[in-house]
């Protein structure tokens, strides 16, 4: 699954992705430096094109972190 497929599945916007990366970067986990690097690298200009470029470069760990962007905390039953 590509990052875009992933984001589309999660209904995620580019702005949301930025927040996810910021959250990971501030989280202090092993992935924090990498998330920070991605944020620094793309700065404020996180466009869809650059995300497509990024998707091909992301290591599996980041993809997993993004896939769990809601940390298992999105449940569709919350909307009932």
């Amino acid at each position: 699954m590509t990052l875009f497929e992933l984001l589309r599945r999660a209904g995620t916007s580019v702005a949301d992705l930025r927040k996810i990366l910021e959250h990971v970067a501030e989280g202090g986990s092993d992935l924090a430096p990498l998330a920070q690097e991605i944020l620094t690298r793309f700065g404020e200009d996180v466009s869809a094109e650059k995300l497509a470029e990024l998707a091909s470069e992301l290591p599996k760990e980041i993809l997993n972190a993004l896939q769990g962007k809601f940390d298992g905390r999105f449940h569709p039953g919350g909307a009932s």
Partner: protein
Amino acid sequence: MKRISMLLALASVLLILCAWPAHAAKPLLFGAVGANGAWLDGSGSQFPADVEAHGVLWAGVSPHIDVGANADWGITHSYLRGEGWAKVTATDTENPDFNLYLKVGYRGGSVSALKPAEWGAGAGFGWRPMPERFPRFLLTGDATRGFDSERLLATLGGRYFFPITF
């Protein structure tokens, strides 16, 4: 039946307490709007069936627990009802497309069938039937029994959900 409701509530509370995160992460917030078919059982229920407009805000506080509140407007019988609740997911928490849950909540409303406000317990589901094509469209169902009135309120609905970020 009241005993079943109480046991359901007790099970929900115990599960919520057990699953409450030891290290509280920042809650993830969501909102949704949609429509329900609603059914309220019991004599003098005033709206044995209605179509409702629905709005809900909730927070995912852990992989198992959601807390939130919803408001519903009965279109045919012109009533407003609301509920604050906590739900514990009983199925795979990593599945963003389907879950079953147990719930405890405090509910009330603008018509006598929904008064006085009361605690209740229930169960329900959420389903994202087409995550690829319509990632923000959900189908939901819920059935909650009030402890005092012993009225069962059941809903089936469609939702459009959105994450809320600050």
